[in-house]
C-alpha cells in the first residue's frame, strides 16, 4: 500500500503514523467489542491472563525461529481453551484458572525468551506495544484477524449475550453453552494477539475493559454499551497516537491512559448528574 495518504493532516501526515492509525483503529474497534461480552461474563482479567500466555508463545517463536505473532496465536488459543475447560468443569474457579495459566505463561515466556536470546528492544514491542513501527505485513494480520473477530461477533452476538448474561438458563434453554464459551475464549485469544503490537501484551486487557467501563456508565442497554465502548476505544487510540507523536510519549501506554482518563471524566460527570436527575425525578 502506498504510504503516506496525502489527505491526512498532522500528526498523521507521515507514512508510519498512518500505518499505526489504521492498525490501532482496528484494535480500537474489536477489543472493546469483545470486551463488552467478557465484562458481562465477569472475566475482565481473561485478556490479561491470555496476554501472559501469548508471551510464552512469543518466546517459543523466538526459540523455534518462526514468526512470534503466529506462535503467540497458537499458544494463546490453546491456553484460552485450557482456561475455558478448567472453568466449565468447575475444576477451578474462573479466577483460579486464570491465575494458573497467568503465572505459568509468564514464567514459560521468560525461560523461552532467554533460551532464544531475545532479551532485546524488539521484545519490548510485544510487551508494551509499538504501533509506530508496524509494517504492511503486520497491518494485514491485524486487519485480517480484526475483521474475522468483528464478523464472528456480529454473527454470534445474540447467543453470546444470552450465555454471558445467564449461563444456567441458557443451558436449560438448549443453547450450545459449551460451544459459545469456547468460541468466545478463542476470539479473546485472537484479539490479544492481534492487539499486542499496538498496546502490548501487558496492556491489551485494558483496551478490552476500560472502554467498556466508560460505555456501561453512558448507556442503558447492552447494545448501547457495546457501541459506546467501540466509540471510546477508537477515540482513545486516535487521541493516544496523536499525543504520543506530539509529546514523544510511549504510544501503547498513552492510549491506555487516555482510555482510563475518559472513564474518570465520564464517572465524574455521571456522579454530578445523578443528584440533578434524582431531583428532577422528585419534582424539585
Amino acid at each position, binding site marked *: 500500500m502506498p504510504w503516506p495518504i496525502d489527505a491526512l493532516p498532522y500528526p498523521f501526515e507521515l507514512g508510519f503514523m498512518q500505518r499505526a492509525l489504521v492498525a490501532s483503529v482496528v484494535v480500537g474497534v474489536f477489543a472493546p467489542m469483545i470486551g463488552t461480552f467478557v465484562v*458481562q461474563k465477569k472475566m475482565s482479567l481473561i485478556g490479561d491472563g491470555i496476554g501472559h500466555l501469548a508471551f510464552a508463545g512469543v518466546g517459543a517463536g523466538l526459540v523455534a525461529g518462526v514468526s512470534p505473532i503466529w506462535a503467540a496465536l497458537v499458544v494463546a488459543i490453546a491456553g484460552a481453551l485450557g482456561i475455558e475447560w478448567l472453568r466449565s468443569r468447575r475444576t477451578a474457579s474462573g479466577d483460579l484458572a486464570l491465575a494458573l495459566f497467568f503465572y505459568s505463561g509468564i514464567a514459560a515466556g521468560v525461560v523461552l525468551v532467554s533460551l532464544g536470546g531475545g532479551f532485546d528492544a524488539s521484545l519490548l514491542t510485544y510487551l508494551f506495544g509499538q504501533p509506530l513501527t508496524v509494517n504492511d505485513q503486520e497491518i494485514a494480520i491485524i486487519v485480517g484477524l480484526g475483521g474475522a473477530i468483528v464478523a464472528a461477533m456480529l*454473527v454470534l452476538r445474540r447467543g453470546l*449475550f444470552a450465555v454471558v*448474561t445467564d449461563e444456567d*438458563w441458557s443451558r436449560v434453554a438448549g*443453547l450450545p453453552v459449551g460451544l459459545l464459551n469456547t468460541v468466545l475464549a478463542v476470539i479473546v485469544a485472537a484479539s490479544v494477539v492481534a492487539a499486542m503490537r499496538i498496546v502490548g501484551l501487558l496492556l491489551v486487557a485494558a483496551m478490552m475493559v476500560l472502554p467498556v467501563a466508560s460505555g*456501561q456508565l453512558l*448507556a442503558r442497554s447492552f447494545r448501547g454499551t457495546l457501541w459506546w465502548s467501540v466509540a471510546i476505544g477508537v477515540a482513545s487510540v486516535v487521541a493516544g497516537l496523536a499525543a504520543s507523536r506530539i509529546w514523544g510519549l510511549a504510544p501503547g501506554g498513552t492510549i491506555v491512559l487516555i482510555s482510563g482518563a475518559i472513564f474518570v471524566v465520564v464517572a465524574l460527570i455521571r456522579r454530578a448528574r445523578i443528584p440533578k436527575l434524582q431531583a428532577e425525578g422528585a419534582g424539585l
Partner: protein
Amino acid sequence: MREPLARTHTLIEAKGVSFGYGRQPVLEDVDLEVRAGEFVALVGPNGSGKSTLLRVLLGSLDPSSGTVRLFGEPPSRFADRARIGYVPQRPVLDSEVPATVEEIVTTGRLARRGWWRPLHRDDHEQVGHALDSVGLGDLASQPLNELSGGQQQRAFIARAFAGEPDLLVLDEPIAGVDAESQRRFRDSITHLIEEHGAGVLLVSHELSAVASDLDRVVVLKRRVVFDGPPAELAASGVSLGVHPEDLPLWLEELR
C-alpha cells in the same frame, strides 16, 4: 400461532426416580407427571428435594435410578428445548453491563428461532406479546437492574413466554414479590394454559394467588407423599392459602 397440544399429551414424566448427593439420599422413588393443559404445583418442606427434582427433570442431573422423559424422550436426547420455558430461582440478575428488559426477554426467542439466525418481525412481535402479558410493555427499554425484584421476576417469566413453550417450569418465581406482580403472574400463567394448552410445573410456597387455578398439588418430602387436587390436600388439613413461611411447616406434619 401453533396449535394447542391435546390434553392427553404427557409433557414431563418421572418414574421411580431416586437421586442422592454421595450417600445422602435426596429423592426416593419419585413419580411425577405433567400433561398438556395441566397446572401442577410442587411443594414441600425446605430441603425436601424440590430443586433437585427440577434439575433431574430438566436433565441437569442424572437420576441414580428410575426414568425421566421430556416429551417422551430421555432429557439427554431431547433436542427441541424451545418447547420448555424455564424460570429459575433468582432474586435479581447480577449484570455487570446494563441490559434492557427487551434484550433479556428477546433471548427467549433464540432456542426457537436458532441462536445464530437473525430475528424476524414475528420474533419481535412475540417478545412484545410476552412483555405485555406480564405488564412490562411500558418498561421494555428500561435497564433490568433498575426494576424492582417483582418486575425483574416478571421479565424472566416473559423470557420464558417469548419462546412459546409447551411446558413451563418455574422455580420459586414469586418469592417475596408484591401483590400486583403476583396477580400479573397468575393472569399470565392461566392465559398460557387456557389459550395455548401449555402445561405448567410450579415450585413455590406462595400459592395463595394461584390456589384456585391449580389442577394438582404434589407434596414432596424426599418421596411423593401427596399427589392430587388442592381440595383433597385441604381435606387433609393443609391450606394453600396460608402464609408462605408457614406452608413448609404445615407440610412437615403431612405423612
